[in-house]
């Protein structure tokens, strides 16, 4: 059933009220009785031996409860932070997987590596005492970037990783690809860098750990996208405490974008410190601390080659990528440049041959892991820059070249050369819709108008695909994942018919409290006002794998639907009894059980009441109560896709690029709440435009970070962005019960190459052929100047 509140309705968000009233409860808002505060002392050096830590003065300072070091971590037997995904080398051997202690022990390996923790009765006292801790470092040479880390004789981040290589992996068919290139009429080559960015959720990470000695129980409040995974890793690997003694709560979380998926050292440290000092211990990152302790994203250097026949049909793709891992392997880090990147290199195109090699490299920098899109933006950027270059070199129109190579609707399910099988899509439809939304036909006129104002106008596009809801568990397990990737849900119908849903996904901006309630309204006919969605608490929710990779609706929503199906089925048996009919004759429709072909019915609420007050009840065959759980393990990824167009105006005197128009058409599957789906697209677009024009984490060759604050790291502000034109064309996912695909990442995936293609389109008449992200004013100005010089102008 669909209703005014069901699937497809743009109802307003249920969660908004508490945020708008200032009543949200984020981790740092929670202050426990007898609260104490932790400050971490972090290495100022990219690489240094920790020779001595003298904490005597700090320990004597007012309010100080403890100063803890890597020695204490080792002495107390805490485990190292594990990596959740093991990638194999080409020869089948395992990747290098170095240790990752909660506090650096013996050696610090990046700026920001935590070396000691001060716990005091207030944050101010902890900060003051931290200045009194005397740490004697022996500074070593470090390497902060891929070119230096892979150079001959580079300093080694880990002795066990020669050449700083973590793994050397490949996918596809090298021989088939070589053969394709051998018969190519045209080969396009491109070298590119996918710039390193900082996720910068507006809420800095925080953790508040509380050990209750009376019942030997630990509680952790943390800024996490997946509290159950955090609990699992704490229990099994780091804190060594069983799950039944450990509760992890991720309350309101102020954005994640990937950076809050991972199990971070601070989560372990506050629990451990609480046990040691006997008080709750809270740590909240300063923003400058976040820059050197949150996992970053992207950071690839790639060489790409595209083989085409004389008509522009793609014959083969060859890719070689270096991927920066940072100094330690974060939870999902190895999966990002492999199974979330190289497997997407076919894009929306029919490629007969692909071969990709990926070398993951350690550097003396903070870890690199999943950031909005995670691998898929890197694949899309490579492919769409390459295709655009191909259009330019062959003289085939950019739209036409893509049309010739897009997978046709009749080809689904489509098996790519890089493992994935796309279930469904209609790339031509999203292309056509995007062309209409940008008014492609009217571009020449807009170009002329810009020129009349002294501006260089350019248009750029990308046609992209992404993969959401990483699954199924059996497949990812074979590929090296050390966890399952299903989702869990529990649906509890209360005696008077209201509903509580417990979901293992986590909402930190996505609006699950609204969209999941819409599923209930849709299936049960219960008003969303009478539905509560509970997430983010391991004691209340059976289990869960959290929210990332745009998986919540497709995997988490499907688990809820599965539980709802069980509820409806059980209700049928109760209704059959109440209506004195056979179960086979009962149908559930519009919120009521009906005897088919009659006007006899029982409202859902009446059936729920009977389940809890079973006076007239089929007690011999049906248990009382109305509550069901389900675990859903998807059969495949989902594959959203679409076309993004961007128009820019460039001020040739200053090099400033202004994004003047963005029009996109996505296929994100069935849409539960169009308002929320559009909002997700907007946010992704802003981050994608941020990567293309504004953002870059700048490490120098030695590993010093030069722009680790909001004074220097630039993110788009309101005045930097236009209104976005967002359209959708729906093909329903074939293998999940809702037909949904996922929307959280599409903007960040599709738009960066469209921006850069637009910039290059604007600059092409001047002779500019390449520019890297972010296309800053100075870079654009230099490119223009160099092109002029090259022309002898």
């Amino acid at each position, binding site marked *: 059933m669909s209703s005014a509140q069901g699937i497809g309705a743009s109802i307003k968000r249920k969660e908004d009220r508490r945020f708008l009233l200032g009543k949200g409860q984020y981790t740092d808002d929670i202050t426990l009785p007898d609260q104490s505060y932790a400050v971490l002392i972090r290495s100022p050096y990219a690489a240094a031996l920790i020779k001595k830590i003298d904490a005597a003065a700090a320990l004597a300072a007012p309010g100080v409860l403890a100063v803890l070091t890597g020695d204490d971590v080792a002495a107390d037997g805490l485990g190292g932070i594990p990596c959740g995904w093991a990638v194999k080398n080409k020869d089948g051997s395992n990747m290098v997987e170095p240790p990752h202690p909660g506090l650096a022990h013996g050696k610090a390996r990046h700026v920001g590596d935590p070396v000691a923790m001060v716990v005091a009765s207030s944050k101010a006292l902890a900060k003051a005492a931290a200045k009194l801790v005397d740490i004697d470092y022996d500074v070593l040479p470090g390497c902060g970037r891929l070119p230096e880390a892979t150079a001959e004789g580079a300093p080694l981040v880990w002795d066990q990783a020669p050449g700083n290589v973590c793994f050397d992996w490949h996918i596809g068919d090298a021989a088939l690809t070589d053969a394709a290139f051998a018969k190519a009429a045209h080969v396009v080559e491109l070298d590119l860098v996918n710039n390193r960015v900082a996720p910068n959720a507006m809420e800095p990470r925080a953790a508040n750990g509380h050990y209750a000695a009376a019942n030997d129980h630990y509680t952790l409040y943390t800024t996490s996208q997946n509290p159950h995974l955090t609990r699992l890793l704490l229990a099994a690997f780091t804190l060594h405490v069983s799950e039944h003694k450990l509760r992890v709560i991720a309350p309101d979380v102020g954005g994640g974008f990937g950076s809050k998926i991972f199990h971070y050292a601070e989560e372990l440290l506050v629990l451990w410190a609480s046990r040691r000092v006997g008080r709750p211990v809270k740590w909240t990152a300063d923003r400058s601390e976040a820059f050197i302790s949150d996992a970053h994203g992207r950071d690839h250097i790639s060489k790409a080659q595209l083989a085409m026949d004389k008509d522009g049909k793609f014959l083969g793709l060859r890719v070689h990528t270096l991927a920066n891992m940072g100094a330690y392997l974060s939870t999902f880090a190895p999966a990002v440049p492999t199974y979330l990147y190289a497997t997407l290199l076919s894009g929306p195109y029919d490629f007969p041959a692909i071969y990709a090699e990926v070398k993951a490299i350690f550097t003396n920098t903070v870890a690199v892991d999943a950031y909005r899109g995670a691998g898929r933006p890197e694949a899309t950027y490579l492919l769409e820059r390459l295709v655009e270059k191909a259009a330019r070199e062959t003289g085939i129109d950019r739209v036409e070249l893509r049309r010739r190579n897009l997978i046709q609707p009749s080809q689904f399910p489509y098996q790519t050369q890089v493992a994935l099988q796309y279930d469904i899509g209609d790339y031509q439809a999203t292309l056509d819709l995007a062309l209409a939304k940008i008014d492609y036909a009217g571009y020449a006129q807009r170009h002329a108008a810009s020129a009349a104002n002294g501006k260089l106008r350019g248009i750029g596009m990308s046609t992209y695909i992404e993969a959401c809801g990483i699954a199924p568990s059996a497949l990812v397990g074979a590929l090296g994942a050390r966890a399952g990737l299903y989702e869990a849900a529990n649906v509890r119908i209360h005696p008077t018919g209201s509903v509580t849903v417990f979901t293992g996904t986590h909402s930190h901006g996505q609006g699950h409290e609204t969209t999941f309630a819409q599923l209930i309204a849709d299936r049960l006919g219960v008003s969303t006002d009478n539905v509560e969605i509970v997430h983010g608490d391991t004691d209340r929710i059976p289990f869960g794998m959290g929210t990332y990779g745009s998986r919540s609706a497709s995997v988490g929503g499907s688990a809820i639907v599965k539980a709802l199906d069980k509820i409806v089925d059980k209700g049928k048996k109760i209704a059959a009894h109440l209506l004195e009919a056979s179960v086979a004759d009962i149908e559930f429709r519009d919120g009521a059980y009906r005897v088919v072909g009659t006007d006899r019915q029982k409202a859902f609420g009446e059936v729920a009441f009977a389940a809890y007050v079973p006076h007239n009840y089929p007690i011999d065959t049906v248990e009382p109560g109305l509550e069901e759980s389900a675990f859903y393990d998807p059969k495949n990824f989902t594959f959203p896709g679409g076309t993004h167009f961007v128009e820019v105006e460039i001020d040739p*005197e*200053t090099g400033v690029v202004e994004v003047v128009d963005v029009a996109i058409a996505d296929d994100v599957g069935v849409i539960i709440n169009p308002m929320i789906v559009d909002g997700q697209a907007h946010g992704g677009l802003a981050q994608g435009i941020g990567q293309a024009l504004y953002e870059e984490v700048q490490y120098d060759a030695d590993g010093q970070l030069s*722009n680790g604050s*909001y004074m*220097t790291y*630039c*993110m788009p502000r309101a005045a*930097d962005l236009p209104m976005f034109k967002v359209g959708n064309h729906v093909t329903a996912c074939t293998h999940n019960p809702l037909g949904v695909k996922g929307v959280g990442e599409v903007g960040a995936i599709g738009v960066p190459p469209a921006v850069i293609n637009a910039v290059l389109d604007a600059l092409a008449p001047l002779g500019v052929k390449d520019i890297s992200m972010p296309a*800053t004013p100075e870079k654009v100005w230099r490119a223009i100047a160099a092109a002029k010089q090259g022309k002898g102008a």
Partner: protein
Amino acid sequence: MKDFQFHRPTTVAEAVALMAGKDGAKFLSGGQSLLPVLKLDLAEPTDLISLTGIAELREIRVDGQALVIGALVTHDAVARSADVRKHIPGLAALAGGIGDPQVRNRGTLGGSVAHADPSADYPAAILALGATVHTNLRKIDAEEFFTGLFESALAPGELVTAVSFPIPKRAAYAKFAHRASKYALVGVMVALTSSGVRVAVTGAGAKVFRVSAMEDALTKGFVPEALSGITVSADDLNGDAEASAEFRAHLIGVMAKRAVAACQ
């Protein structure tokens, strides 16, 4: 942030008296420059003497051929003042482009001037308009006021009370802002005054400076094209990840032209 004694005088005389003998004391006005510095522990004053209770420093008045703006007037108040908009609209526009609305609501002219940040906007106006900085002790010419990176002619304990801006015939400011901090990477104020053309550049060097070649060219013809072909050397200019010295040198030319165009 290290703790300090806090004082809130209501007159200039009281403020100056409080400062006497306190080597580690600092005046505090809107705090939009000083507090970020204190939060990063880059300074640890023993005393902060707040000026925000001194009503006499909040006045904007026209004094003959000059506009006198009290040290405690906020950037927002300058931007919105009818007098400033009427007599020196370029100054109102400059003030309206400092930082962001929250900064403009707290930040003051006097605080900005005393902080002498090489990337602040006001120094360009002070130098280009030939303003005079009034203190509790004396009046300091614009040419003498800014002496170096975060350094001014102010003696220890000396308090900026007002700035007197001679009303120019025409003046305008063009800024190329750092995209993250919004401070000026290059800000150029151009003024056509009764004593000639003045071009002042902030953000690009260790302190605000004039460009005589541009002034000479504009004296011959006060139009943007007059600046064509004039280049500023990148030597001694600031360079950072956001803009190299060469790019800043280039931007000085572009922003100067735009400022002149805005004067037309």
